[in-house]
């Protein structure tokens, strides 16, 4: 069978899960910086590498490739794992 699928065909960016994250967090988080717990680099959520053609969605650090966030939607619930994120940084309005 001829297949020519590269990593690039499978990899999107964090904007691919923007709608899902907005539903869960109640806000658009694509511009929110998140620090990778593995390498320490800070990137906007929308800039993370997203793998969504899988049993769940996996967001990876664009620098080191470590898993930062995993999202699984089952028939009853949505689980988000964020062990790979050291912190989010939210701007304070007027700050």
């Amino acid at each position, binding site marked *: *069978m001829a*297949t020519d*699928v590269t990593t690039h*065909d499978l990899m999107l960016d964090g904007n691919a899960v923007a709608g899902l994250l907005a539903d869960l967090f109640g806000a658009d988080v694509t511009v929110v910086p998140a620090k990778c717990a593995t390498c320490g680099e800070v990137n906007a959520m929308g800039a993370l590498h997203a793998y969504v*053609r899988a*049993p*769940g969605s996996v967001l990876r650090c664009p620098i080191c*490739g470590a898993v930062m966030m995993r999202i*699984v939607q089952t*028939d009853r619930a949505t689980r988000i794992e964020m062990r790979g994120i050291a912190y989010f940084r939210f701007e304070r309005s007027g700050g």
Partner: protein
Amino acid sequence: MTERFVTRGFVGRRSSGGPEDVASRIPPGQYITRDFPVLSAGPTPRTPLEQWTFTIQGLVKQPLSWSWQEFQALPAREWTVDISCVTKWTKLDMHWRGVSVDTLLEGVEIDDRAAFMIAWSDGGYTTNLPLPDVLNGQAFVAYEYDGAPLAPEHGGPARLVVPARYFWKSAKWIRGIRLQAEDEPGFWESLGYHNRGDQWREERYSGD
């Protein structure tokens, strides 16, 4: 050694292969696909074959590791199996060539306490299976699909194949197995997917 081994019998429920039998080969909630969809939780690893090894470790008397060349020399056979992915596609009569887990384990002395197998892969993926679910011809490590080397996007150079479980249990890019006394949920099992994943019981998600 070439030995044709047709294993569709794992899932039972079929006989002569006529159209009327196809429906009986589709697990609940699944549909038939003719494609071979690619699913991946991360970038496709590209480990050079000269650096590739396959390791058996954990509750064994002496850990064992094969190079790619040594692995190719192990007794292999052909397998024709139906595969079901938890994302609901089922593909019938997939042709693989590979080495059974039984053959792999013949090389080690297994500790009596070993009850679970953790498959681990390049890229960090893991999946867990009870040992009785991968013995007696129920699982193999495949390195050919449809008569050609297994493509990287499908898990090549080698992937685990466990036809009687949803396909996430068939770890792509497998590099080794670890035998343990305790179970240890893998990449998807630890986040809501069913620990066993039997497609005939439609075990997609964990109980909650």
